[in-house]
């Protein structure tokens, strides 16, 4: 078993020496993966989905928490809860579909049935079953998650009861969620048509890449060149170029046009001012959003923003808007469930533009994401080499990071634990430190418990 000291030793975090390095074992060691599943995915708050996926009583959708199948249900009374999607009788999944509506969920194996509040409604042939009294000492209901919470239509759960409140978990990242939800008075919805894909690499590569501005010009030149080609040809498709290469020459080196924010619980944001906000689907609401929320908050909504809520959800807003749920399957295999998210009630033209831009950039059949995922797989293969175990990808921005908010955060009263205000070229990497500090604290806390348990079993 790995001890907490060993876990802590995998993150070389020495601010006084200007050093932050991550050990390659974090990406490749199955024992580390086992611990992080217990500590992070099955030991704390994770994102499930949106309340708008369950508009009506008795609506449900299915997902996973760590390695557990989960059903999220809106009960007949309108309340929402999440349950282990496994029949207490023999373990079969009770809800078979990704989404649906049912007052009664009947297990396909022996027809035990459950209502949309998870309560057992019938055990087939119970009266004739010659059960002992002891049988009813167990609850026959679907097992609810230990903790369930909602923040502004975002649903979260924890399989462990011993965690702080959802409010504590989200901490100061709340205003960044508000920037998404407040784009429409009715909130956000998922556009029909989910897309899922896998990559043969560790889940933390996805966690990092979403916050990594340094890779963009290296990994996505084909996408950028295609946008230029379309501009030249007045392409009749609908992707407009929000990355205006001419603006590069207008920028003053050192003058911030974006940056990163880190939060204590491992949440991070990286952001940039849009070169061409007029090309955004949201731009049609430019005036009304300013009236409703003030110009500072409106301007923030128009910035490109990639938000990660540690550990499993990312909201990427640039030319379009994506909600990504990260599902680690093994140390070297990850599944992504991805959705186009959109403000409810936007115009048909804005929605069409959002969808076209989404497909171009975000799909695994598009022009950008495949180049990312292939690189993750390349990293996974390279990280098998432990000869030089310390990765050096955490050093950019070390001398630019400041405690607390910067002047841009102040405009919306955002209170990150640290900030980097950056020009186009800085491409901060200290933003990853927040991930790994949260990772280290949580995994090492569980490591000793697991080691003691293993020792007790073997003694």
């Amino acid at each position, binding site marked *: 078993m790995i001890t907490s000291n060993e876990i802590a030793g995998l993150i070389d975090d020495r601010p006084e020496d200007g050093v932050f390095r991550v050990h390659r074992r974090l990406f490749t060691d199955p024992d580390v993966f086992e611990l992080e599943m217990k500590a992070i995915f099955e030991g704390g708050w994770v994102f499930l989905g949106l309340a708008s996926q369950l508009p009506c009583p008795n609506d449900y959708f299915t997902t996973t928490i760590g390695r557990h199948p989960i059903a999220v249900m809106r009960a007949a009374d309108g309340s929402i809860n999440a349950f282990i999607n496994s029949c207490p009788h023999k373990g079969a999944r009770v809800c078979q*579909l*990704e989404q649906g509506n049912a007052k009664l969920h009947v297990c396909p194996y022996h027809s035990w049935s459950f209502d949309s509040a998870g309560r057992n409604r019938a055990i087939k042939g119970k009266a004739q079953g010659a059960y002992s009294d002891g049988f009813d000492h167990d609850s026959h209901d679907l097992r609810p998650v230990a903790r369930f919470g909602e923040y502004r239509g975002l649903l979260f759960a924890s399989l462990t009861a011993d965690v702080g409140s959802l409010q504590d978990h989200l901490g100061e990242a709340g205003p960044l969620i508000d920037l998404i939800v407040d784009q429409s008075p009715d909130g956000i919805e998922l556009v029909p048509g989910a897309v899922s894909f*896998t990559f*043969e690499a560790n889940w933390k590569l996805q966690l990092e890449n979403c916050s990594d501005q340094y890779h963009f010009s290296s990994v996505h030149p084909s996408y950028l060149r295609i946008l230029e080609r379309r501009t030249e040809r007045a392409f009749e498709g609908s992707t407009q170029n929000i990355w205006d290469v001419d603006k590069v020459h207008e920028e003053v080196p050192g003058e911030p046009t974006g940056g990163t924010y880190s939060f204590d619980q491992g949440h991070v944001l990286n952001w940039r001012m849009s070169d061409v906000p007029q090309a955004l689907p949201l731009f049609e609401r430019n005036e009304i959003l300013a009236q409703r929320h003030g110009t500072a908050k409106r301007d923030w909504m128009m910035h490109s923003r990639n938000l990660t809520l540690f550990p499993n959800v990312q909201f990427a807003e640039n030319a379009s808007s994506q909600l990504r749920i990260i599902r680690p399957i093994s140390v070297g295999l990850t599944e992504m469930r991805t959705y186009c998210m959109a403000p409810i009630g936007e115009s048909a033209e804005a929605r069409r533009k959002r969808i076209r831009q989404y497909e171009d950039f975000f799909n*695994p*059949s598009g022009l950008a994401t495949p180049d990312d995922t292939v690189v993750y797989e390349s990293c996974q293969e390279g990280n098998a080499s432990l000869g030089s175990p310390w990765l050096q990808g955490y050093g950019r921005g070390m001398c630019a990071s400041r405690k607390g908010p910067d002047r841009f955060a102040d405009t919306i009263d955002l209170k990150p634990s640290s900030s980097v205000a950056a020009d186009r070229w800085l491409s901060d990497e200290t933003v990853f430190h927040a991930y790994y500090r949260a990772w280290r604290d949580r995994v090492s806390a569980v490591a000793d418990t697991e080691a003691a348990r293993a020792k007790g079993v073997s003694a």
Partner: protein
Amino acid sequence: MSAAPGVQDTAPAPLSAEAAATLLYQEALYLDERRWDEWLALYLPQARYWVPAWKSEGEVTSDPDREISLIFYESRAGLEDRIWRLKSGLSVASSPLRRTAHTVTNVLVTDVSTPGEVEVKATWNVGVYDPRRKTSHIFFGRYAYRLKSTADGWRIAAKTIFLLNDNIPAVADVYML
């Protein structure tokens, strides 16, 4: 129906199933042999190329303006961009290209009601080999084509690709479908 005297009836005979199959096989061969320009030339400039996504276990998306597609292009220009990208050397997902072998079967002409046009349906699978990682995958599904007669022969006016196994291992591209 007979043509008026002195006017040549130019509406061609509907495409036979055999001729339709030959066109589909030709397209598959162009992709597998990476004869990209010949592949593009099979498509009319205004051709629609569409790979719907799935919105439930049994239903694909049906309205590209309100629902997500895996790929949706309203003209051949979208395919030209894809080919440019494959050849550019600027996409790591496409360098090296994967090796592909298309198999197209069950070809039926399903609608001949519009003069000069036919609807063709078929079943396909594509074996994809990634020489970098030495891994294989098979994508499979159904095709629905609308073919149009032109002065240069029959051309693709619309192609819809139903990808049945849509949990995609890292990459799907036009030459793998």
